[in-house]
């Protein structure tokens, strides 16, 4: 049943990629909020 490892690998890879992307969105969003608050201070 070695091939089951590949099944798990595929599912894990899929969600890892999705998480990485959504994570990058969150990070960009936070940086944008920071820029916005800096602008508002001025």
């Amino acid at each position, binding site marked *: 049943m070695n091939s089951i490892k590949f099944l798990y690998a595929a599912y894990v890879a899929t969600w890892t990629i*999705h998480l990485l992307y959504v994570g990058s969105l969150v990070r960009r969003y936070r940086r944008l909020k920071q*820029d916005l608050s800096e602008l508002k201070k001025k």
Partner: protein
Amino acid sequence: MKRAFPILATFTALALVYASYQALRVAPTDALQGDVYRIIYYHVPSAWTAFLLFFINFIASVHYLVDSNRSASRVAKWMVLAIGIGGCVVAYVTPLPNGMRPSVAATTALAITAVYFVIGKYFSGDRLDMLAVTTAEVGVVFCTIVLVTGPIWARPVWGIWWAPGDIRLTSTLVLWLIYVSYLVLRRFSNSAQTQVLAATVAVFGALDVPLVYFSIWFFRTQHPQPVIGGGGSMDPRMLHVLLISWMAFLCFAFLVCWLRYRFETMRREVEEAQVLESLLGDDRGPSAETGNPKVALNRSGL
């Protein structure tokens, strides 16, 4: 509108859980491949989603290029109508490759027309470009998943990671390359007209795809290669689970696109504000006396 998001997110999460359960438990085990074949329930829906997103990007890019010009816009509209009606006619009159059912071809043709007019109605100008960049990015994410799960599936089943003649995987790779270069262009371009340049690249990419497909197809007839993800009919129960998976991933894709689109809206607003701030200068700071444009520019981070 804001309340819709959490509701949709919850629904999507449930749909994904349900789909995964169906994929892992309910779907019957394949006679030849065993349980590994279940990768298909992530691989194929991701591919269909990626293609749909890239298609929307293409339509948005075309709109962006032609909408400013009346005659070009009219030509495009007529061409799209011709594709829709012509596609229906061709689907039922001529024999289709690969045993495709006429209804599928006709629906695809009509869908092209429908998407073109729907996008034209609800999006215009800058918002077309925002739609373009959103679908390109999310499309690349899903396409990456296709290219990662494909070899993971191929290795245990066919003993090889990659077959250069495999028409679907190779075409998908080229599509991925085209859209990554599209995103790199958007990142590296600092021109005011980045959007137009990117739209032309998208159009070129779309023109390229059928050529890629045919060139690899012919290459394969001259150099027979193993076919990964082989064709052929599917057990209806498997098809059922496949469609459930696809619906779940479509909802997920929609959610992510929504987030990306909203982020893009905000990003442009902030950018505009930053530009304005640097142009008008800060009339509350010391630089106002000196009227030093350099200081204002530095502060806005441009």
